[in-house]
């Protein structure tokens, strides 16, 4: 397939996974950007294992993921009870700290970065396997007992604790789980780019993910899935004459969407309408089949 389609699909998948990490922790009202810092840790360690120790791909992948998860514990344990805004600034601080750390550690190639990450065959298939896997995980979570507990915490933390939900533990588990997703996304990102530089996992990355999730809708998992390809695709196919206006178009789009629907385009009400609508359509088709069978029968 053409280059731009291949890389478009690849990056959309990675943005969707990271969008979900924001969505999943926001289910209990906390805005967490730590997965981007975890991305840096897992990407660097996986790259280091591949290039310096010459490990096979799968071993380096697991090693990177493992280190990412272990690292994800540090902010999770500390930020379990932090309110939304405190967590935002803490995790942005963590991103800048990890950038400085990897820039100054001697083994990671400093600000010049690491080169020559090998190309992985069928990377696109693997990425979408992970997207599907994490998607199912979140879907099952949303419709499970845990999902309802998360909803309770989002609505009112005090009443949730009276019902015996351990909010701190819930938050730590969610943060570590999204840290894992961040670790996987980080390594997939590095396999796409095949070089690592400390500033890859920085502010520009954060800005685009926040835009995708807040325009798409941060109260349902489908908002990111629908709007990441739309918005990212928009910036790729912008005609040459107005590429210079990209930031302004993005800014205005973001502003208009949030003013009209403050919870993003696909929020809970929108989903309910779709569910009801799709059931009706399904019923009609089903009854149509019945009629045809009766007529023929």
């Amino acid at each position: 397939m053409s280059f731009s389609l291949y890389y478009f699909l690849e990056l959309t998948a990675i943005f969707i996974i990271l969008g979900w990490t924001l969505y999943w922790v926001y289910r209990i009202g906390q805005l967490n950007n730590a997965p981007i810092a975890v991305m840096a840790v897992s990407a660097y360690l996986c790259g280091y294992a591949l290039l310096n120790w010459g490990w096979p791909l799968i071993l380096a992948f697991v090693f990177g993921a493992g280190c990412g998860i272990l690292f994800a514990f540090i902010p999770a344990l500390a930020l379990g009870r932090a309110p939304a805004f405190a967590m935002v600034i803490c995790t942005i601080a963590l991103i800048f700290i990890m950038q400085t750390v990897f820039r100054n550690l001697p083994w990671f190639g400093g600000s010049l970065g690491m080169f020559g990450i090998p190309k992985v065959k069928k990377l696109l298939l693997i990425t979408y396997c992970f997207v599907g896997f994490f998607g199912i995980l979140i879907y099952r979570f949303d419709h499970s007992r845990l999902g309802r507990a998360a909803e309770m915490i989002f609505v009112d933390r005090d009443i949730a604790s009276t019902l015996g939900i351990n909010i701190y533990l819930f938050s730590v588990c969610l943060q570590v789980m999204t840290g894992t997703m961040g670790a996987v996304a980080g390594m997939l990102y590095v396999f796409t780019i095949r070089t690592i530089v400390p500033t890859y996992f920085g502010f520009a990355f954060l800005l685009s993910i926040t835009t995708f999730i807040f325009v798409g809708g941060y109260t349902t998992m489908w908002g990111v899935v629908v709007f990441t390809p739309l918005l990212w695709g928009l910036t790729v196919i912008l005609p040459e004459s107005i590429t210079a206006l990209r930031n302004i178009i993005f800014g205005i789009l973001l502003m208009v969407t949030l003013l009209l629907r403050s919870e993003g385009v696909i929020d809970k009400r929108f989903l309910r309408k779709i569910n009801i609508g799709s059931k009706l359509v399904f019923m009609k088709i089903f009854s149509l089949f019945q009629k045809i069978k009766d007529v023929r029968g």
Partner: protein
Amino acid sequence: MEVFTAQLINAIALGSIYALLVIGFNLLLVVGGIFPFAYSHIVVLSMYMCWIVLRITGDNLILGILAGILSGTALSLITEPIFRPLAKRGAVLSSFIVAMAISMIITDIMSKRIHGGVVISFPLTLQGKEALITFGIATITAGHIATIAGSIIAGIGFFYLLYRTRQGRAFRAMGQSPFAARLLGIPIVKTSIFAYMIAGFLGGISSILLAMSLGSASAVLGDNLALKVMAVALFAGLGNIGGGLVAAMVLGLAEGMALAYLPGEWYQAISFGMIMVIIMIKPKGLFGAMA
């Protein structure tokens, strides 16, 4: 000893820059009911406006300063109708993202449409060519005195406004409970417009003081300041106006000293690390919120 005093002066100047910006930030947060991430970008854009007028009128300082203050107020007022529906719904998080969108637009305008995107610098008459007082390598320039004095005057004036005047009481009432404020007959829309105007006016003055002390402005200055001011506000406790001033000075001193005495490449990690540790220990900020 000179070195320490010189670094101290720099740190205080940095602290007063943050203090100037955090006052307007907290006012918009408390009264406007929004998270004004784009406030620093509005201040930097007014610096650009002041620079444009200076260039057109051939460095006529009075017109330049007027332009800076007017554009700060006007820009802040323009954003009021954009944020009003969000403030009414109490959607603070969405206002944070809308503010981020506005900051994207402002940064794009500054990085391309004005002076071709190149860093602009202010005429020496505004900056003061020579340092006013020098002893050894420590110097105090007109810019330093202006920003420090400006932040002190703005701080005191702001406290007087909030705690001694009728309008100030209305601001604080709206901040604490908009419903009670309505019952008392406080005109919600008029008061929030007035709050935006004061924040904009203060932003305009800060833009002039910044022009005097920094001497130049670039498109990326908006983002740098916005992150630092957000950190200061959170560090002190969101909306806590008194705490904000103290936190601005503390962070300015800490950053100034870190810049001076710590190895350069670790400076960013240390300043952000400090903010992270404080917020982890006291999530509501050092002084608690909404005093």
